[in-house]
Structures are given as C-alpha cells and as structure tokens.
C-alpha cells in the first residue's frame, strides 16, 4: 500500500480538546458546553460570557449541594453525574474532583 509523504501530525492534547468540544457542540440539540473548575470559574465555554458566568456560578452551587447531599446520606458514596431536566432543556453535569463538564441540551431539537 503506497504511502504519501506526510502531513504533519498535529500535537494531540490541545487539538483533541478543541475538536472534541466542537464535536459535542455539533450534536443534536446541544446548546452549550462549559468547563468549570472546582471553584466555579469557567475555563472553557461555547456560550457567551454572561451566560457562562451565570451558569457556572449557579451550577457550581447546585453541584456542591448535590454532592454534599449524597455524601451526607452515605459518606462513602459520591456524586457521579447530575442531570437537571426542565421544560425547555436539559443540563448535564459530569463532576469530578477538580472540574465539571456542563452540557446544555435541548433534547427535542
């Protein structure tokens, strides 16, 4: 099988993050993606600034509360995923020790 002389392989990590975000953003109904750090500060977002800040702050508090709820009920348990379904859309949050990934989707799109 013949091979062509090459295209240079792009550096992976950064490229992957951007591409992955674009890919998710392009999926059906996805309205926005925000990555927030443990303090609630947005790191990466596909929404406008004011929405991002608003979502980040509010969701951060929500996740903290949800997490403490889970932990209070059973200290060995921990929050792994949070989905908030509302009339207009759905917010999915994948929390971690240091970061959250927030995806806002309108499922009927």
């Amino acid at each position: 099988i013949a091979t062509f002389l090459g295209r240079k392989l792009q550096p992976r990590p950064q490229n992957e993050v951007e591409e992955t975000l674009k890919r998710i953003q392009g999926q059906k109904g996805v309205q926005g993606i925000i990555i927030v750090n443990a303090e609630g500060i947005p790191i990466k977002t596909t929404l406008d600034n004011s929405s991002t800040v608003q979502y980040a702050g509010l969701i951060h508090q929500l996740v903290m509360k949800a997490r403490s709820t889970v932990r209070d009920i059973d200290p060995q348990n921990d929050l792994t995923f949070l989905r908030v379904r509302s009339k207009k859309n759905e917010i999915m949050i994948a929390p971690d020790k240091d970061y959250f990934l927030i995806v806002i989707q309108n499922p009927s799109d």
Partner: protein
Amino acid sequence: MYLKRPTAVQPLQLLTWDTCYFHYLVPTPMSPSSQSVSTTSDAGSQESVDGGTVGRTLQWDTDPSALQLQADSELGRRMHRLGASKIVQIDFVPKELVTYTKETQTPSAAHQSEEEEEDEESSELKASPQTDQPEEEGEAEDSKEAHPRELTEEEREQILHSEDFLVFFERSVSVVERALAEEGDIFFDYSGRDLEDKEGDMQGGSNLSFNRVFHDDHWSKHRVVTCLDWSPQYPELMVASYNSNEDAPHEPDGIALVWNMKFKKTTPEYTFHCQSSVMSVGQIVLWDNRSHRRTPVQRTPLSAAAHTHPVYCVNVVGTQNANNLITVSTDGKMCSWSLDMLSQPQESMELVYNKSKPVAVTGMAFPAGDVNNYVVGSEEGMVYSASRHGSKAGIAEMFEGHQGPVTGISCHNAVGTVDFSHLFITSSFDWTVKLWSIKHNKPLYSFEDNADYVYDVSWSPVHPALFASVDGMGRLDLWNLNNDTEVPTASVTIEGACALNRVRWASGGREVAVGDSEGRVWIYDVGELAVPHPEDWSHFARTLVEIRANRGDGEEEGAVELPA
C-alpha cells in the same frame, strides 16, 4: 443557618459568665463596661479581637429582644479600608442568609460585605462579628466573588494542557456523550402516538433498515475496513480493524476500534494501535481491554516459524476453555497458536496443493463445530479443504469454480433440525457468489446477481437459508434461499460508500455490520427477514435438493469428497 435570634441561642447560655445572649452592638453610649462581652460568646460570635480598640460608641444592647440593627460601618470596615463611615440607625429586618459555615452559626459576613456598596448601607449586625473571620479581607471578598473573577488566558491554557484535566475530560466526555445520545424522552406520552408507532413497526418488518454508521473522523478516515467481528461476551460491542491510512503516515499503520452498539454515541469506545496493517480481527482481541494502553499486549513475532507474509485470516476454534488461534497467511502457511504463548506457534503447516504449490490463502473458514477441517480460499480462485491433524493433514481437496481470487468464504453455522454444516459459500472477484458442499468439488450453485467484485459473504448465524454479501459498488445483499435463488431477497446500496469490504452478522442475527473502504462501519437492522422459523430448515433442505437437481449435468459430479 439562620440569623440567630437571642431566643434561639438559649442552649448556649450556660457557658459564659455573662449569660450569653447574643448581644447586638448598638451605638448608644452606654456604660462601656460591657466591652468585655466581646470575648465571651462561645459558639463564637467572634466579636472582634480588637474589641476594645476603638473608643467607639458601641454598646451591647441590654435588651436583646429589640432587634436594632445598626449600621456598623466603623466596626465592619475597620479591617478593610478606612473609608468614610457613617453610623446609621435603621430598623432593619436582617436578611436571612443560608450559609454553611463550619464553626459559627452566624452567617458569613463576607457575603454581606461584598454586596455592600462600599461603606454605605445598613449591614446586618451580624456582619460585624464575622468580618474578622477572614483576616485576609481582600481575598475573602474576592473568593466569594469567584464568579466575576476570571482566569487569565495563560492560566486557562495551562489548565487545559494539564494531565489532570485531560484525564477528567476524556472520561467525562465519554459519559456525557452517552447521556446525550440517549434519546427517549422520559416524559413522552404514548397515548397520542399509536398511529405512528404502527408505522414504525411496519417499516422494520420487511427489509433492511439503516441503523447507524460508525465513523470516526480522526481514526477511521481514509482507512479501509479490513475485518469486523462481534464480541461474544458483550453482544453490543463490535470491533473493526483498519489498515493503514494513506494520508497520515505518522499515524500507526493498523488500528482496531471497538464500537458500542448499545449507546448511541458516535465515537469508538476504545482504539488500539498496531504497527502493521491489521488485516483481520478474531473474536479474541489481542489487545487486552483492561490495560489501557493502546498497543497490542501480545503480538506474534515476525519469525520464519510464524508468518512472514500478511496474515489474512484469524479464527478461533474450540471451546471457551480450550481453544486455539488459527492464522493463515498469503504465503500458504497455517499456524495454530495457543493464546497463552504467542511467541511461537504451536504448530505450523505449509498449505501446498499436490505437494508443489503453496496456496496463497485469502480466506478461511471452519465448519460449525469442527476444529480439524476447514476450507480456504485462494488467490487463484480455488477453494481447498484442509485439515489440521490426522493422516491427511494439509490440503485435501480442491474445489474449482471461481475465476478470480476468492475474497470471502463462510461456512454454514446456523444450528437447527437439519445439519447443513457441509455447506459453505464463497465470494470472488469474478462477480459471483457460489454455494458449495464439502462433498462435491464443484459448486452447487452460483449467484450471479452482482455487477462488481464481491468482497465478502457471511451466513446468518440463526437462519439456515440466509446470507449476506457485499460488493464493490456499495451494495449489500441479503439472500434468502428459501425465498429466491435468482435474486437477493433484500438489497440496499449504501449511499456514500464506495466499496464494501466486509460483512458480518451480529451474534443474534438481527444486525449486519458492513465495513467499507472509507473506514466506515455501517450497521443495518435486518428485521423480520432474519428471524428463522422452524420450518425453514426443512424448507432449505428441499431447496438444496432442487438446486442440485437443477444443476444440470453440465458439471459432472466429480469424486465425492471425503470429509477430510
């Protein structure tokens, strides 16, 4: 925690000599003696450390019931800045703030302080005991104002590149994608939908219907799908192998991707790399899924004892516990490996026909349940039956019929009332698919409906008379021999695909996976067509009889082959 009314503090009272009620500071110049109170409160209204510094006009309110909240800008502000301060007496209902502080049961003042417009305003009195709590005032305010604060661009970049973040990202993205892809509105109301439902059913009933396509832009683009297989353990997983990507020579030459049918996300679950083009993938993935590395855990070495030519086929034979890996390559060598020891084949054999010509094998298949005998297709268009052990080890018989290289070969493996395991089908560059029986060295039947190279055929694992074939024009055909032997019962041309390389049935026989030359894996639901009925077996037996009868005598029987 709510604002402490004095009454609520009752339980605490025994602790101080001053009968600790919560006292409010009021700027009425009363006897300054009660300054000492400042240090009392146990649970902490940590009244200021500097209780006595300022000769201020504040005093404990001896009548605790009166909620007189005074502006205490002086006290509150002395830590922060020496701004202008006003003392304003205002009767004010405290804002109820729910906060979670560790020690005290007083709301955190920082919240208040941030809302204050500088030194204005009537803060709660509560603010005052707390202000010293964050000694580092500046940060206290800031940390509460995390939202407006932004990370600098460099900080962001740094985070985005950090190992921690990437691990989190990869994992979370996987989870979120699965969640995203779950359609299925939990609120859906079926009552309004009966009609549509029926329509959906009907559609699935007859034909091939498109299910989905697996394609990964990064990995599978420009690669030819060389082999597909379904996982026996997790029926929703399938693995596809791809050969080298011409456009990106720096990428690994061969990769295998594991796709998950159950979750609808469109990215592969795992990716594996390999140094050379992966030509075929057996049911046992040579890469251990548990270790998260991307390179093969075990690999057979390139040695003269093993294969020096491309390995075209891999098959696992035997039972769950005692099994062997059989590989065949284009140099005519067949090796059998034990999975525990892949450094050397257990046995190897040269496949030569008539003791002279090595067979360039392009396809191999084992009849159901047989671990010794198998059939191989070759580049010259011949099909041979061979056996691994026994007196006639090696090539036994030759089946002539095809005029071009044999591209795919599949043995009948649907188990039912009648045994058809002597049947196999082959596909070839000569545009035909032929049906054979081990017992005859000429084909039983030839299917001539294609107009291009036929690249692969595969029997359905459940239906005795059903098989699928794919050709170079992007066509996927399903033949039901009980139905019609002249034309396929169902056929679909996959749009956007060029040539289809591989076809494999899912273990349940309801879906077919097709790989194309662009690196895409298409999954098709087969629907009703795939479900066998008990009489299908006897029907097929009759069909076979008819086929043989119709074969005509143009092709004489030839020697009846002994099952080698």
